[in-house]
């Protein structure tokens, strides 16, 4: 019974972090119809900035928002000075479909290897800001710790914040309109290019948060060639696809479904099958429900 509860709680926590990454991917997809494969590189960069902030300011709580701002700023730069130029130069021709995919991959490689050159092999790590020792309930120690509780509540707070921005503000209305129907939005006077950059910036911030929360939840180590961030990208992508790639609600649902599913595989089947299981769920969803579990119409709303 305790095992079951542990599995569920752990699944939800890691799923929440996948959701953040999925949200980042969905935000970029909705604003520019590009899967940003550099998202994990951008998250890595922001997490390093967060790490430097922790070194200087000795507070995770100040470093987290700073790294998110840095992530947003960097993403906005990438959109303005890289993606816009790319779209202009590859608007037609046989390469137009694959150019953004190739370009974001190149960017991922560029970020990782330049980070590697700058920070080298110095072992950076982010220690958990709160205890990672499990809560004790009537003599049993749960695998669910204050750190996981904090992670979960941070993710929920961020999602609520994003939902409020999207549903209740003028900016949110402009973001949604530009995503669904850019031409109509332009005719209504929305500066779609600028709004897209804001979409990228929000994605950059969400990715940074995913990186900052994922690192202390793993073994805390931070390295430019970390497999952790690659997996974050892949699981974020799978979560986004489960949610239909169009919807923020879908991204959250997709992340939680994936997190829970993988946690159960890990505890009840085998830890070594986690990746294969994730890959299978991706293929199954793509073949059976290509528009995501929520379907297109309902999924596209929020």
């Amino acid at each position, binding site marked *: 019974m305790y095992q079951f509860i542990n599995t569920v709680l752990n699944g939800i926590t890691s799923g929440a972090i996948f959701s953040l990454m999925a949200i980042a991917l969905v935000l970029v997809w909705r604003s520019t119809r590009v899967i940003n494969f550099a998202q994990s590189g951008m998250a890595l960069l922001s997490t390093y900035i967060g790490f430097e902030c922790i070194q200087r300011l000795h507070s995770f709580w100040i470093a987290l928002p700073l790294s998110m701002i840095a992530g947003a700023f960097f993403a906005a730069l990438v959109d303005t000075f890289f993606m816009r130029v790319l779209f202009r130069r590859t608007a037609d021709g046989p390469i137009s479909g*694959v150019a953004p995919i190739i370009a974001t*991959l190149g960017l991922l490689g560029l970020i990782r290897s330049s980070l590697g050159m700058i920070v080298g092999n110095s072992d950076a790590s982010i220690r958990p800001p709160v205890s990672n020792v499990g809560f004790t309930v009537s003599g049993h120690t749960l695998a669910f710790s204050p750190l996981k509780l904090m992670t979960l509540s941070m993710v929920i707070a961020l999602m609520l914040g994003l939902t409020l921005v999207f549903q209740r503000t003028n900016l949110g209305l402009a973001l949604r309109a530009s995503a669904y129907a850019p031409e109509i939005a332009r005719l209504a006077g929305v500066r779609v290019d600028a709004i897209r950059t804001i979409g990228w910036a929000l994605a950059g911030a969400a990715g940074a948060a995913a990186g900052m929360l994922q690192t202390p939840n793993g073994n805390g180590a931070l390295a430019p060639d970390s497999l952790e961030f690659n997996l974050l990208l892949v699981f974020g992508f799978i979560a986004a696809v489960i949610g239909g790639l169009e919807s923020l609600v879908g991204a959250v649902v997709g992340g939680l479904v994936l997190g829970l599913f993988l946690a159960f595989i890990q505890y009840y089947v085998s830890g070594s099958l986690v990746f294969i299981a994730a890959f299978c769920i991706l293929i199954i969803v793509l073949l059976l429900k290509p528009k995501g579990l929520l379907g297109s119409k309902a999924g596209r709303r929020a």
Partner: protein
Amino acid sequence: MHKILHTNLGRALFFTALGFGLFLASNRIDELRVYQGATLAMFVVAISSLILLTGYSGQVSLGHGAIMAIGAYAAALARIHWGLPVWLCFSAAVVVAAFAGAVLGTAAARLSGPYLAGTTLALAVGLPSIANQFHVLGGEQGLLFDIGQPPSWLGADFTSYKWYFWIGSSACLITLWWLQNILRSRYGRTWRAVRGNEVAAQLCGIHAGKSKTLAFSVSSGLAGLAGALLAMTISTVSPSAFPLSLSFTLLTGAVLSGITTLPGVIIGAVTLVATPEIADAISQRMANSESVTTNLPGLLVSALLILVVLFVPNGPVEQMRMFRVKARSHTKN
């Protein structure tokens, strides 16, 4: 030269002559160059497989490094467990990878660009870590892939590197010759039709899904061959030989070659072989610190990828051709 390549006999003669030239060359250059020649041949095969997929069939794969790994493991297992002769090991690599490609391709045929890219990326990230967990695949250390000594009739001073080069360049020439033929066949036309306009192709009675699956399978078979060649040159098969960056490197090679045209493939392959050397020279002159040495090749490859996509998105060969066409129409006017 273009006219020679338009007939079957001409193509066969051309590639035979090319092979003879390479054979003569291999006797005159030093060991290191011969070894690089073998790597070059491997990259030519790998990049052609990607160009076939992206340029001619319109699908994109970020996971060809992983498919190369499948071929390499198949070749190594065939060698270790059954002791098959070398050429059969390579055939096993092609067959197993093509089969894996057919399975993947069935799913891939239904996916549009970004979905397929993400799925193959997931494969590239995950596959090496899967190899770590199965005893039969040798874990972190991987498997030994020893193709044995060159046959004795080649003489006592015939080195292993030269043997690698011979095998590599024969495989490469056969691949290119076969590709030239298949791209001119019914299949090649079908692939181009589906890439150009899927709906129109279907209205002409082409089964787009089958055509895409076939392209994915053929491309995977070639990637498997490239994987076995790579394993041959480094004598082992291990997860670390097929990292995510290998898939990126191949993509860079393909984009540099001009992703839609096969003839440029040599440009991409030469660049990929030269990059580590250039990186080495730069890092020795600059700082010679470990972090620079390990990361500079990756940095150069990614920077190259970005620059090419931004400035010569269709590849240098196509760019030149377009330039010539423009110049010609200009003089006519």
